């Protein structure tokens, strides 16, 4: 095949894939814009009839619920989680990369143990622990819980990134009279920026979408995050499907923005190996 045809084929495949993969999102948008009566039919409209489109659901969302509070809470928790995760993961990743002892590596691997505990059972002990130290019903408890879940993977991600930064650099710096810590902070860290960016995005997404802890560790409506707040559109007897979808779509806005802004950083950040 000529290169031209290969390229066209490639584009066709990409678009086909995107259409299939993003179809559910399209459907969510339609659910927010059309009444169920039209959407839930044996011949659903793949193209929405323009006359039936209404943005009522979106207005209702803001009318009915304190979406602003939700967004603020989610942002606080996410920001806190990102900072904590980046700090811990960077430090741990560096250690895992530099330490040559098998014991240490095994210990690092054991970080994954945290992810083995079923969330259902983890929630009660966590609830009690946070209660005991007075962090009951605070956003801080969510930050901590999220960080605990994120750090294992993030640490290993950073590790693989640090692996590609030769130790000679630090050696050279030490030979020049830098302390070990200084070498780490001024030489290695800046080079690890893309990795840090990757961990930041990864923890942002996980923390923004976290549900299990957010709904159990927080009581009252002051600390509700977006993910928990969404469920309130499902009432006891019926659900406001349109508003649910509208609110849900609005909630991914910040994340999509983050993607767009940090996409280049993200891709180069996750390179586990050669750095171009």
């Amino acid at each position, binding site marked *: 095949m000529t290169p031209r045809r290969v390229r066209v084929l490639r584009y066709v495949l990409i678009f086909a*894939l995107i259409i299939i993969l993003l179809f559910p999102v399209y459907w969510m948008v339609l659910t927010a814009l059309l009444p169920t009566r039209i959407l839930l039919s044996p011949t659903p409209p*793949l193209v929405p009839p323009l006359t039936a489109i209404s943005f009522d659901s979106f207005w209702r969302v803001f009318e009915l619920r304190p979406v602003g509070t939700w967004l603020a809470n989610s942002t606080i928790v996410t920001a806190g989680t990102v900072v904590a995760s980046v700090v811990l993961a960077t430090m741990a990743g560096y250690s895992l990369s530099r330490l040559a002892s098998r014991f*240490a590596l095994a210990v690092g691997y054991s970080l994954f143990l945290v992810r083995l505990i079923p969330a259902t059972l983890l929630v009660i002990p966590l609830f009690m622990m946070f209660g005991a130290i007075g962090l009951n019903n605070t956003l801080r408890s969510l930050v901590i819980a999220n960080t605990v879940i994120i750090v294992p993977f993030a640490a290993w991600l950073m590790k693989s990134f640090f692996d590609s930064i030769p130790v000679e650099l630090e050696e050279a710096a030490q030979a020049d009279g830098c302390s070990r810590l200084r070498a780490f902070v001024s030489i290695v860290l800046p080079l690890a920026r893309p990795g840090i960016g990757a961990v930041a995005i990864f923890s942002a997404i996980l923390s923004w979408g976290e549900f299990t802890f957010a709904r159990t560790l927080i009581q009252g409506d002051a600390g509700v995050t977006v993910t928990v707040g969404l469920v309130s559109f499902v009432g006891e007897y019926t659900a406001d499907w349109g508003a649910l979808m509208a609110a849900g779509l609005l909630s991914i806005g910040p994340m999509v923005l983050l993607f767009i802004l940090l996409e280049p950083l993200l891709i180069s950040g996750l390179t*586990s190996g050669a750095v171009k």
Partner: protein
Amino acid sequence: MATLTGKHDIEQDGGPPQGRSRRRLSLSARNSVLSYLLLAPSIAMALVFIAFPIYMIVNLSLRDGRTMLMSEVGDLQLTLGNYIDVLTDSETWDALRISVIYTSATVVGAILVGMGTALLLRRQLPGRRWLRTFILIPWPIPGAIATVAFVWMLDGTYGVVNFLLRHVGLIDENIAWFFNPDTALIGVLMPTVWIAYPLCTLMLLASLQSVPDELYEAARMDGASAGQQFRHVTWPAVQNTAVLAMIVTGLWSFTTFDFIYAITRGGPDGATQTLAVAIYNQAFRFFDLPYAAALGVVTMAIASTVLLALFPIVRRRFF
């Protein structure tokens, strides 16, 4: 420019990474106090948040009697009865079977989709930045609306998926995906893979970045087919990341229950009851915390065995 490239990660046919210079460095350079200190906070945090919960869960699992009250757990008698019950109950093994199917299918599905999308989006294409952003959109979609959307999309009477499938001629009659025990698991896998694939795409795409186009050129000039190119150029470069992605996806899908619960609650008649869902049911529907805890311990034991088995592979790849 000062080179940081070091060695390419491109390995020859899966052999161990070449010439890692670290092994020749003095131990003092590597195992410095600083390194241990930097690891300490993470380990400490993990210890605190693993140790107490595991202690509580194991303690619960060894107690006789049904209770929902943590404060009276200490008064109950110690017993291994819960473990006996768990291990002899056929529901446990059914749940394990379903968990295995669910987890493996999710991992395979996510890696395949991730690989496919990563390969397609690797090249320099105009608009690549937007395409890559679009592909990742399922990732931040909240589980609450993803489950609702899929329930309606896959509905037996009014679902658009049935409509499309019939239109295209793939099926004759509507499939009630979540209603029919035979199709319920497949139905639940769809939103799961959908949410899980973007992470794989991201990771695979990133490590594909490190493969220079020249290698592909060279391979093509040598007459390699697409399949051979994949095996000899692509795969060696991404295998590490792929393994990591599979581990993370596997761990997540093994322990997650929100998705399945929101869609089918483990039904119909247990067809989608994974271990995670079973634990939830025991704790919050049957109000038998000790039993649930025992089931939880068994689940963790299975998962850590698998994880341990994978450790040598991970060690080989990453070190």
